[in-house]
């Protein structure tokens, strides 16, 4: 009977069902977009910035003093590369310094890298937009970010000076030539980070063959806690950080977005609940006399209450599969094609470290939560109309 009652006013019920479907679709689409953005941001952090894990001398990360190189770095590096679950490991010498040109200067983080492993670890080769990668035959080459290049008016072939303190605390400098310009999804990083060969850097730092960091990429994101624990167990004196510790703002963003998703969904459904309540109250009002007749004939108040509850739930849940289905299809489409959000401000998104090409992903893990929100919407929406029906007195209802 409840199902048939829904179809008494077909247009009204269909509008409500469609609004639930559209609301759900909109909510899920936003969640999918958030998930895609967060996943892209996390991938950027892992694949081209921090890796899954990083090993340092415990004192190094405090103020990036170049004298704190990783003890037995080469041996550790070899052992890590042999560990199960490790995709690659790359060494880095790191220091903070000053980049100077005839036109001005800028503070930079200088990464001394081995080109091959670094290309794999940070995909530097794929980010190159101008010039060339490191040439084995040439010394003192530098690859800089596009934002820095624009700011300092540098182009491939331009000369610059890198200045920093060596491991003994003395100021050292070297003249470098721009080999290439890279552009990543993280504009602030592009302005700050420059890459030179590790040998060129170590010569200036006077650290010999030592380095400050080993960046580790794993085969699976899920292995991070396990391998972090294993590494910590093996090299107790080293500081071993996961990407979440290295980039806590990304971790915070992912978690906050997760919570925001549910809040957003709840707000959408709450707005829809008012529509459902209104529809059901109208339906009850139109059927006042009929409900009075049912009570007169011997229908208990509980049955009337349950009838209204059931009608509201059916109305709510009838639109739910459609919402999920439309969301699933459209998300699957954009998951393949990608969604270009560059129109929303490429520079702005990049300045927050986000790519403008997003691959939305159906938030399957949130499915139980979404169903719970729909269920709560139905419950909240049904209570007021059901109470209204419950409070009817048959003799008064019959007078209508």
């Amino acid at each position: 009977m409840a199902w048939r009652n829904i179809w008494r006013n077909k247009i009204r019920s269909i509008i409500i069902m469609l609004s639930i479907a559209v609301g759900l679709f909109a909510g899920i689409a936003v969640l999918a977009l958030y998930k895609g953005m967060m996943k892209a941001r996390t991938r950027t952090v892992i694949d081209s910035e921090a890796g899954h894990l990083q090993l340092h001398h415990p004192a190094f990360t405090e103020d990036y003093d170049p004298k704190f190189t990783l003890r037995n770095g080469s041996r550790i590096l070899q052992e890590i590369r042999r560990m199960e679950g490790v995709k690659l490991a790359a060494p880095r010498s790191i220091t903070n310094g000053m980049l100077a040109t005839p036109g001005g200067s800028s503070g930079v983080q200088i990464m001394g890298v081995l080109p091959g492993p670094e290309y794999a670890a940070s995909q530097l080769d794929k980010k190159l937009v101008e010039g060339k990668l490191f040439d084995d035959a040439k010394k003192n080459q530098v690859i800089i970010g596009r934002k820095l290049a624009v700011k300092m008016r540098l182009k491939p072939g331009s000369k610059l000076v890198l200045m920093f303190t060596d491991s003994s605390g003395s100021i050292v400098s070297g003249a470098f030539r721009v080999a290439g310009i890279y552009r990543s999804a993280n504009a602030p990083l592009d302005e700050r980070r420059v890459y030179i060969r590790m040998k060129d850097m170590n010569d200036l730092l006077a650290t010999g063959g030592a380095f400050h960091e080993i960046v580790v990429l794993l085969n699976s994101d899920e292995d991070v806690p396990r391998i972090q624990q294993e590494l910590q167990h093996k090299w107790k004196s080293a500081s071993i950080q996961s990407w979440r510790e290295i980039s806590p703002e990304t971790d915070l963003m992912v978690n906050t977005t997760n919570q925001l998703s549910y809040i957003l969904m709840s707000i959408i459904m709450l707005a829809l609940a008012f529509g459902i309540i209104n529809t059901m109250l109208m339906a009850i009002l139109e059927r006042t006399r009929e409900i009075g007749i049912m009570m007169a004939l011997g229908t208990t108040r509980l049955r009337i209450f349950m009838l209204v509850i059931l009608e509201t739930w059916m109305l709510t849940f009838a639109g739910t599969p459609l919402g999920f289905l439309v969301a699933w299809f459209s998300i699957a489409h954009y998951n393949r094609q990608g969604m270009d959000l560059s129109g929303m401000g490429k520079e702005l998104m990049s300045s927050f470290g986000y790519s403008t090409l997003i691959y939305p992903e159906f938030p399957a893990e949130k499915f139980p939560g979404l169903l719970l929100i729909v269920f709560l919407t139905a419950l909240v929406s049904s209570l007021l109309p059901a109470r209204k029906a419950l409070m009817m007195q048959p003799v008064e209802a019959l007078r209508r």
Partner: protein
Amino acid sequence: MKTVIDAHNISKVYNPETIPVYAVNHVHLHLEQGEFTALVGPSGSGKTTLLNMIGGLDKPDEGQIFIKGLDITRLSSSALINFRLHNIGFVFQSYNLIPVLTARENVEFIMQLQNLPEELRDKRVEKLFREIGLEDKMNERPSRLSGGQQQRVAVARALASKPQFVLADEPTANLDSKSAANLLDIMDRLNREENITFLFSTHDQRVIERARRVITLVDGKIASDTAAVRTDEQHPSLPG
């Protein structure tokens, strides 16, 4: 003869604290099993209020109503619902079938509320539809039935619970002469053959003419209570 309805000194007062208006004013009413009674009177005379109180839909402000010896004025509202379900059949002026249910489902609805087994329900539904002559319309929705047909289904619904008596509030008010006559024939036959007690409120002269007892209400009081507009001679099936 068994007493079915015994109303003692019942009153219903509106605005008791300002200007009291007696819808029903200290009425005594006694109905025996198998009576076919019309409650008549001008609009506002208290017919529907009296029926509502006898049917347990409304409570009197004074007096007691005994149905088969049980004082229904003392029952809680949930007990009253259950009492109505098993003891009273209602026929309303505007048919009031549930539009989303078929004619058959409307009749079956009461028996489902009574939790009767499906087999018994089927048997009773078929018998009732035979009695009202609508076997071929059982699976139609009310919207596809004429007013007269709908009211016949409403009578079948009223009888589905095997009630002690049937209360009918202006049952022929919305019917044309032919449909009204047909409906009255059915109720008359059920009354005579199955000894079902009927109490009508009506303005309709056609109903009054068929009733064997006519109670006239004026300003909430019984102005007259007369047996037999029709005589027993007109009902050879009735015991003399």
